[in-house]
């Protein structure tokens, strides 16, 4: 399967214009269809979304030159699904995302899959998916680029960090899924094997410090998630894990050797949903193991993340959010003291503690406005490409953001 992300940059601008025109066209057609103008068969659905954000930071850069205020945050998506039989579905989504230098709006295939349900009765279902599939990870990863499905403008960065986000998005392979209703609640399970997407520069820099002469190759990797829901989702508990393997293919005269990187994230998720409020928390451990890379010394490190989040629906169309989110890159060196001693770099590169407050206003069912503020201590999730002088980043900084999003 081809990776659409590899288009050269000068070309991608042309493609983006094309995508934008197509997007507006489909938007027009689908709203005409909804108004009764054109009738799509019930088994064919077209959906999409468009979000524009504004970000202003007191120090450091997040999605573009945000210290001067940045509109460099746009998300466009368009998907189609066709279900010719109740047990068979084809679906695909195209996505264009601009978010600072890490994402410059190239159109990529977010997912493209065939879903066949081979077993189904009133209490239990099981099926298989083949193709490029969104990684089932935590509560928010499956739809992380769809603003309407996020609890805030920016997802809790400790777990859903945008630095090296590509491997987290989707992978190409095969997934098995099933769900079953019991008297005490519903259990659903998804497990998959496939190849992660790790060939971009940001991922390389996140794992290998710099953009090296060679490149990373995704090897056969595994992912799984089990979710328990009680009372129609009043209580939701989840456990997700992934075993991601990548090899480094050295370039010419490369001091970095042909070694291996293993990445094992594990997330515990919990959510309680009442009528006017929800409480959510997720805790993650991320083990990274780097072996035989020559110039880059062997290393084994475990990162740790946790957030606590409360949302309150003041009215059915107005929702307030408070969250405290903590990321430690190395749980053996939480404050980065050893790191600072060894490298002479500031310890705050290894952690980030983020207090967030935000408001969501659903102007219409299809139109949403958001505003939020982050007060952050530490720089562990600052995008690498937006901050070339990361060692001189400010430890204490603030981020203000607004976002308007439309969906259909």
């Amino acid at each position, binding site marked *: 399967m081809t990776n659409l992300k590899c288009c050269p940059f000068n070309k991608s601008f042309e493609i983006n214009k094309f995508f934008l025109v197509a997007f507006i066209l489909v938007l027009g057609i689908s709203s005409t269809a909804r108004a009764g103008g054109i009738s799509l068969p*019930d088994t064919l659905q077209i959906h999409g979304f468009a979000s524009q954000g504004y970000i202003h930071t007191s120090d450091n850069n997040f999605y573009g030159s945000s210290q001067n205020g940045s509109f460099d945050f746009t998300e466009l998506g368009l998907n189609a699904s066709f279900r010719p039989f109740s*047990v068979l*579905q084809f679906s695909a989504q195209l996505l264009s995302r601009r978010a600072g230098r890490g994402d410059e709006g190239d159109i990529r295939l977010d997912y493209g899959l065939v879903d066949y349900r081979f077993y189904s009765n009133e209490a239990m279902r099981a099926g298989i998916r083949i193709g490029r599939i969104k990684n089932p990870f935590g509560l928010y990863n499956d739809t992380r680029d769809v603003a309407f499905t996020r609890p805030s403008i920016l997802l809790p960065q400790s777990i859903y960090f945008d630095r090296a986000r590509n491997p987290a998005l989707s992978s190409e392979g095969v997934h098995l899924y099933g769900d079953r209703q019991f008297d005490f609640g519903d259990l659903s399970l998804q497990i998959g094997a496939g190849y992660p997407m790790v060939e971009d520069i940001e991922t390389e820099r996140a794992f290998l410090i710099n953009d090296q002469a060679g490149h990373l190759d995704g090897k056969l990797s595994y992912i799984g998630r089990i979710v328990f829901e009680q009372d129609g*989702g009043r209580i939701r508990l989840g456990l997700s894990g992934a075993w991601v393997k990548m090899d480094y293919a050295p370039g010419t005269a490369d001091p970095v050797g042909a070694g291996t990187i293993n990445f094992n994230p594990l997330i515990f998720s919990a959510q309680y949903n009442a009528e006017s409020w929800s409480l959510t928390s997720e805790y993650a451990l991320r083990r990274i193991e780097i072996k035989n890379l020559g110039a880059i010394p062997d290393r084994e490190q475990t990162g740790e993340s946790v957030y606590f989040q409360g949302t309150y629906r003041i009215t059915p169309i107005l929702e307030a959010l408070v969250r405290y989110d903590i990321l430690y890159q190395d749980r053996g060196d939480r404050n980065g003291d050893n790191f600072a001693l060894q490298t002479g770099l500031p310890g705050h590169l290894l952690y980030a503690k983020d207090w967030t407050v935000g408001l969501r206003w659903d102007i219409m069912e299809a139109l949403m406005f958001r505003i939020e503020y982050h007060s952050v201590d530490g720089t562990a999730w600052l995008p690498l490409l937006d901050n070339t002088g990361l060692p001189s980043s400010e430890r204490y900084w603030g981020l203000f953001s607004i976002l308007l999003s439309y969906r259909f």
Partner: protein
Amino acid sequence: MRTFIALSILICIATMASVTHAQEVVVHPTVLQEQISRNTLRAIFSKRLQNWPEGTAITVFVLGDRSPLHIAFCKQILNVFPYQLRRAWDRLVYSGTGQSPLEVNTEEDMRKRIANTPGAIGYLPTIGQDDELKVLPVQ
């Protein structure tokens, strides 16, 4: 003053009556099932269950998230909040793992679409005798 109080009470009763007005689960008359459990109904409306036991595809119709009938149906019949269903549908729609229910604008549209779609399910305020629809009691 007395008239005002009497009027207020009347308005209160009227509002309460409209909030708790009865709804019924309605299906296309060819659906064989005679009754349905709340768990199965939830699986259908959250789009996890796609087939009737006899194999026919289930087509789910809903009103908009802000429709009072939709809110009442979610809370009183399904025992979930409308925002939970919306989240579940969004997860399916934007990850390619399912489809959302079909949204209709009015109760009349709901009635017509269910009557014309074999395997269809939806909800309506208590209906009288209607040969084109079948009411499914919830256990």
